[in-house]
């Protein structure tokens, strides 16, 4: 009897443990969702629907949905079709999207970060509608942006939408004025300014380590001013085919050293590890913090909290300075609109995309979210800090974010940097960054990484 009980308990234990593996096996291959264009299903869904339909539009919740809702309202009035906006958590947006693709739960239209690397991630040739030959899409888009949208074969699976973004140092002008300092002329000058601010009782820099992603901005914006100068475009191309190791780039290592120096000098806020994007906005807006390495996604957030006048008059911007000058402005291409080739309402989805990039819709967008336009005939009132970046672009002193120039990603960079903030170990951090980059290239089956 006791033996039998023991056997039963052993079996129960093994069953409990065995069931773990079910998690690994029931996810299903993404291949199941990859019906090519032109299949019966795709053709059937491509037939125009006489009845009004409801389209689903996915967007990360880090984006302000206000302009989209305004555009969709106009679309609804014009076509009778409704658009349901689903804002998914920004941090998990890609994963949630991939999961929905794997299960065949396709949205009609979705917003995606810029760059052709997304094509690899989403297996674009099998899953997405291809736009390059589509009439009425490309005429108004600025040429460089059109080029950026196409892969090596000249195909575009996304339609650009939004504005040219930027990353760099956002600062509170009042705080600078009170301390009697101005935008830095070089990196050493930036540290002097930070020390002066600290002496005046102001926290010079805020770092959102808890959220992870804000810490990446220091390195990405530093890359264009510092790393690009060392390795050039050829170096980036070598990285793209794994012929250059991140750990062999001295300028990248120097960025880690600089970050550590700022921390060691006590120029970040007191509790960096609990720093969040939300608190960053509050502290910068209230003048408790002078500067933050940040992306322009902070502007609508600051505007919500402190008003448009505040963002217009009190927030300044400068690029990551180099040892000798004010540096290079880091820019990001606009987001892209994508339509799954198996979208439930394919025709209506294409119609929506074309409506969104019409002159009227684009101007509605820029009225709500001023920024550097990517459409030829668009008008947008720029914030002063956006004008600063535009001046850099006009002077030829701007560069696209390296993450948008590479096909493999700096996987888990936020996590690596969190760990770096704890350990302060530069070599380990770079080694890990390098290993993860190669791992991602390998995982994406990119040439040179396998």
């Amino acid at each position, binding site marked *: 009897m006791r033996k039998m009980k023991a056997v039963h*308990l052993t079996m129960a234990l093994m069953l409990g443990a065995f069931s773990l593996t079910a998690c*690994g096996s029931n996810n299903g291959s993404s291949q199941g969702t990859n019906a090519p264009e032109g299949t019966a299903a795709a053709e059937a869904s491509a037939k125009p629907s006489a009845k009004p339909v409801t389209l689903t539009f996915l967007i990360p919740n880090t984006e302000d949905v206000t302009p989209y809702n305004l555009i969709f309202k106009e679309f609804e009035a014009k076509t009778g079709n409704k658009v349901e906006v689903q804002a998914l958590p920004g941090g998990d947006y890609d994963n949630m999207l991939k999961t929905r693709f794997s299960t065949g739960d396709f949205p009609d239209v979705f917003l995606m970060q810029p760059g052709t690397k997304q094509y690899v991630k989403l297996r674009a040739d099998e899953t997405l509608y291809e736009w390059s030959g589509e009439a009425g899409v490309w005429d108004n888009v600025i040429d460089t942006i059109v080029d950026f949208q196409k892969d090596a074969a000249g195909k575009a699976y996304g339609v650009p939408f939004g504005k040219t973004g930027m990353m760099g140092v956002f600062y509170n002008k009042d705080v600078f004025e009170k301390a009697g300092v101005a935008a830095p002329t070089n990196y050493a000058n930036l540290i002097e300014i930070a020390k002066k601010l600290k002496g005046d009782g102001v926290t010079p820099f805020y770092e959102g380590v808890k959220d992870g992603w804000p810490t990446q901005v220091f390195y990405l914006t530093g890359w264009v001013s510092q790393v690009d100068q060392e390795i050039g475009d050829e170096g980036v191309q070598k990285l793209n085919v794994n012929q250059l190791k991140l750990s062999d780039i001295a300028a990248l290592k120097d960025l880690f050293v600089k970050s550590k120096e700022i921390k060691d000098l006590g120029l970040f806020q007191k509790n960096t590890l609990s720093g969040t994007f939300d608190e960053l906005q509050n502290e910068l807006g209230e003048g408790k913090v002078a500067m933050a390495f940040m992306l322009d996604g902070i502007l609508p957030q600051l505007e919500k909290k402190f008003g448009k006048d505040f963002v217009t008059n009190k927030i300044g911007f400068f690029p990551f300075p180099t040892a000798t000058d004010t540096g290079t402005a880091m820019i990001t291409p606009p987001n892209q609109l994508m339509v799954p080739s198996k979208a439930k309402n394919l025709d209506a989805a294409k119609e929506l995309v074309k409506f969104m990039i019409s002159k009227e819709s684009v101007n509605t967008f820029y009225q709500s979210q001023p920024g550097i336009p990517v459409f030829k005939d668009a008008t947008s009132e720029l914030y002063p800090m956006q004008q600063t970046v535009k001046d850099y672009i006009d002077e030829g002193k701007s560069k696209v974010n390296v993450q948008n120039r590479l096909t493999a990603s700096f996987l888990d960079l936020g996590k690596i940097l969190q760990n770096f903030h704890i350990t302060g170990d530069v070599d380990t951090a770079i080694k890990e960054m390098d290993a993860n980059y190669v791992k991602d290239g390998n995982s994406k089956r990119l040439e040179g990484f396998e």
Partner: protein
Amino acid sequence: MERSKYPLYFSFPAVIVFLLFFITPTIIGIYYSFTDWNINADAIKFIGLENYKELFNEPRLKQAFINTLIFAAAVTLLQNAVGLALALLLNEKLKLRNLLRMIFFMPYVIAPLVIGYIFRAIYHPEHGIVNQFFGMLGIDFMVQDWLNDPRFALFTVIMTDIWRVAGFSMVVYLAGLQFIPKDLTESASIDGANYWTRFKHVVFPLLAPAFTVNVLLAMIGSMKVFEIVMVLTEGGPGYTTEVFYTYIRNTFSSGEMGYATAINMLLFVLVTLVGIPVLLAMKKREVEM
């Protein structure tokens, strides 16, 4: 007493469901752990032990392994200690006994995700009630950033999980206590045994089956911990609270399905390796009534 016998085919539906939904996915999972299954690849190739070789060279997995063991050991031990203490207390004739039993069991029926969100607010470095309480008492050295300080993060997650699951152990121990014949403890009392002696020599040995169940369930459950860690710390700061499942989630997210399944298999082996000796050892000390 002669046992009543039932035809074998009565068990067929259950066996079919078991084979279909448990054994088959498990076998498929084992197979995939030996493949390069990746969402970016066109085909799935058999690669033998490559995934296993790779995961043994992964420092982050090593950290997750250590954290999982610390978490499992601490939770198993403390969950049972607290659960037993509560069960002994609430087995006595107290006025609010039933209400207290319900209160202590309640956290177990709340979703770990909800608990995580609540405790994130409770542990907030400035506005959380934990630090405000310590501040109010004037013991400022106790005011800490509980979830974001690498020194305390894992400890804080462990304590939160114990709060969540101790009520479950309490219920199992209470059930065990109900089965102990009162005449045994009463006769021990008449013989002059005090509470501790009665507990040590009468109650504790007879609670052994409840111990076995509680320890095994606590151990398996805590080795599979995910939600509470995910919501409270996401495995951070850095990798200080990374556990197996947060790491597995990460690899699944990056599309490395074969590799992630191999980690899952490693966890299965680990649970089995730890679980069976514990089970056998505990079964040995069970007393038949």
